[in-house]
């Protein structure tokens, strides 16, 4: 489903569904895994299989039996365990040193072999390449470390409000093109601590996309409002739910809702899809709702000058009531921000749980964000920022186009730097990740039950620092392995 938008931007994120044969192999794989899981559990119970880690703790043996709930973890996920949570020993730049591990008891415990493998990093959210440990950003950060120290030792309300925090907030507001911004030390807590402050109290409704991040879900639940979930990026479903909510009013009393808040993300990290922002804003204006946009992955990564999904669609940032984002991905730092009108930010400054109880952002981290933001905006006098953004855009388009030409099913919008590759069968996902690691390429797998049963995938994150040779090497490896494992599902 492709639709033409103003400015020639198309939303083209629908991907082909899994071919029937791949789905059938997936079911067969899972059935075999489940059958062997039951067999192994039986052997462990009668004592033939002596893996004591699976038994549970010694002092709880007669008290708490090994539960059915850990069946998938014990029998299926432990087989994939060596491909997740791999320790690294270098900064997560374009290449990363992954420490090799072996296991003597079937992936229950690992020990380091002492060897390192330098891999092309396709697993870190390093979109603009600011995760490096040398350069002007790092020099400024080291200077800030000497000036302010590492810790802040206080909350924003008490003694933790430094000049650098205020400079960071002014820079962020200028970067986004809004009145004011407020920053927090942790990206997750930016959502979970502030959504309750914005829609707390009775009579509020939250309309949340089904694939929203856990921080948004937690914040929505903590706020105590009624939560309705609409299908992922489905504007018709959102409109239907909005209409139903407004017509029916609050549960039981049928009064009007005090506030309706639509929460969407800029880029969804597991799907790679970009929100249909023009349509959401049209709906928001038509029905009088508020919009909360979480740009965790899209800030810095989309748009001509890196201003995020609002620039990607050509939308005035003042149309979005609450703009939220994190500094972890494109800026190579930590923390999050919320930006919007002055009234909104003044309210958050006074009432946010994070400014009251959580320590503020560490000063060197704030300096890293300020330096990287200035580079992106071009305020450091060079055009390095522009080059990074351009390289990310070319890398993304090249990578996705080549994968599509090869015949893979790739999810998500064609401008999104998050590239999930559909590899449905669990055994093939494992094999692909292992073989790519053998060829010094590191990426992340995702299997059922974290994804739908027939949509197991590997996820790759493109960075501005990836060179054309690296991408070609990755593409050639994926193509070769794809031919061998018959992963080129696209018709």
């Amino acid at each position, binding site marked *: 489903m492709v639709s033409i938008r103003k400015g020639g931007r198309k939303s083209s994120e629908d991907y082909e*569904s*899994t071919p*029937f044969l791949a*789905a*059938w192999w997936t*079911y*067969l794989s899972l*059935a075999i895994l489940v059958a062997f899981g039951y067999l192994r559990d039986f052997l462990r119970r009668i004592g033939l299989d002596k893996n004591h880690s699976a038994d549970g703790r010694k002092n709880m043996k007669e008290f708490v039996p090994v539960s*059915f*709930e*850990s*069946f*998938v*973890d014990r029998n*299926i*996920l432990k087989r*994939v365990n060596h491909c*997740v*949570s791999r320790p690294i020993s270098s900064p997560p730049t374009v290449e990363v040193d992954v420490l090799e591990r072996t296991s003597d008891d079937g992936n229950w415990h690992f020990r380091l072999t002492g060897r390192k493998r330098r891999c092309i990093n396709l697993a870190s959210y390093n979109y603009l390449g600011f995760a490096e440990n040398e350069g002007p950003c790092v020099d400024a950060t080291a200077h800030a470390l000497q000036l302010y120290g590492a810790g802040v030792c206080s909350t924003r309300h008490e003694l933790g409000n430094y000049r650098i925090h205020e400079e960071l907030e002014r820079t962020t507001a200028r970067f986004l093109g809004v009145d004011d911004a407020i920053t927090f030390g942790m990206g997750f807590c930016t959502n979970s601590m502030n959504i309750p402050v914005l829609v707390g109290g009775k009579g509020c409704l939250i309309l949340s996309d*089904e*694939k*929203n*991040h*856990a921080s*948004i*879900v*937690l914040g929505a639940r903590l706020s105590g409002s009624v939560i*309705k*979930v*609409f*299908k*992922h990026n489905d504007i018709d479903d959102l409109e239907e*739910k909005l209409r139903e909510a407004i017509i029916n009013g609050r549960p039981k009393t049928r009064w009007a809702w005090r506030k309706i808040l639509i929460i969407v993300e800029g880029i969804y990290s*597991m799907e790679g899809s970009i929100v249909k922002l023009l349509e959401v804003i049209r709906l928001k204006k038509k029905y009088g709702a508020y919009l909360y946009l979480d740009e965790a992955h899209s800030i810095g990564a989309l748009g001509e000058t890196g201003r995020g999904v609002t620039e990607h669609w050509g939308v005035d940032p003042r149309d979005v009531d609450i703009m939220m984002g994190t500094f972890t991905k494109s800026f190579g730092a930590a923390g999050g921000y919320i930006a919007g009108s002055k009234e909104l930010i003044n309210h958050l400054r006074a009432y946010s749980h994070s400014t009251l109880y959580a320590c503020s952002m560490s000063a060197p981290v704030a300096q890293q964000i300020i330096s990287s933001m200035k580079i992106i905006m071009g305020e450091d006098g060079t055009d390095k920022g522009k080059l990074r953004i351009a390289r990310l855009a070319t890398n993304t388009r090249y990578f996705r186009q080549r994968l599509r030409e090869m015949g893979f099913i790739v999810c998500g919008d064609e401008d999104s730097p998050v590239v999930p590759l559909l590899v449905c069968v669990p055994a093939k996902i494992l094999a692909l990740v292992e073989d790519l690691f053998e060829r010094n390429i590191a990426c*992340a*797998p*995702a*299997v*059922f*039950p*974290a*994804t*739908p*049963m*027939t949509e197991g995938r590997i*996820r790759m994150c493109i960075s501005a620092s990836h060179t054309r040779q690296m991408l070609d090497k990755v593409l050639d490896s994926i193509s070769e392995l794809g031919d061998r494992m018959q992963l080129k599902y696209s018709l």
Partner: protein
Amino acid sequence: MEQMDRTQPKDSPRVPVGTMGDGGTTYSGVNPNAVWLNSRGIWLSYVIAVTILHLILLSIPFLNVAQAWTLTNVVHNIGNYIFLHMLKGTPWETNWDQGKSRLLTHWEQIDFGEQFTTTRKFLLLAPVILFILASFYTKYDPLHFVVNLSTMLLVLIPKLPQLHGVRIFGINKY
């Protein structure tokens, strides 16, 4: 015999969402048990699996056709009963729903407790069609009929909407 609530409101998303495969936990998501029977191609796979079971039973030399059909029916129904009506909860951890689905069988979790969905109708039809086929191929022999009918009733009765969440004599309650 008390009725239990649904685990999710009716307008919940139809697709599970979650973190990457790190222990299979999904924080923001819904119970994958409710939706995986709607996946692409699962019904045909179910039919193919039953067919393969039947072919295996047919190839055992000392069973005649009638016995093979009855055995297929019985094995299918027992498997159906165990996996849909006896096992409770989920084989993965459900941190998000505070244990609501721990007391529900898989049948009660399907489509978040909504009745008369197409998946439920399919799972209701499967034992009926097998019973009809088995009756035909056993030439309506009385003994085979009793066996086939009793296993079919064993599987059909728990699927009635009136028995949603019902635990007779407290069997299988916790």
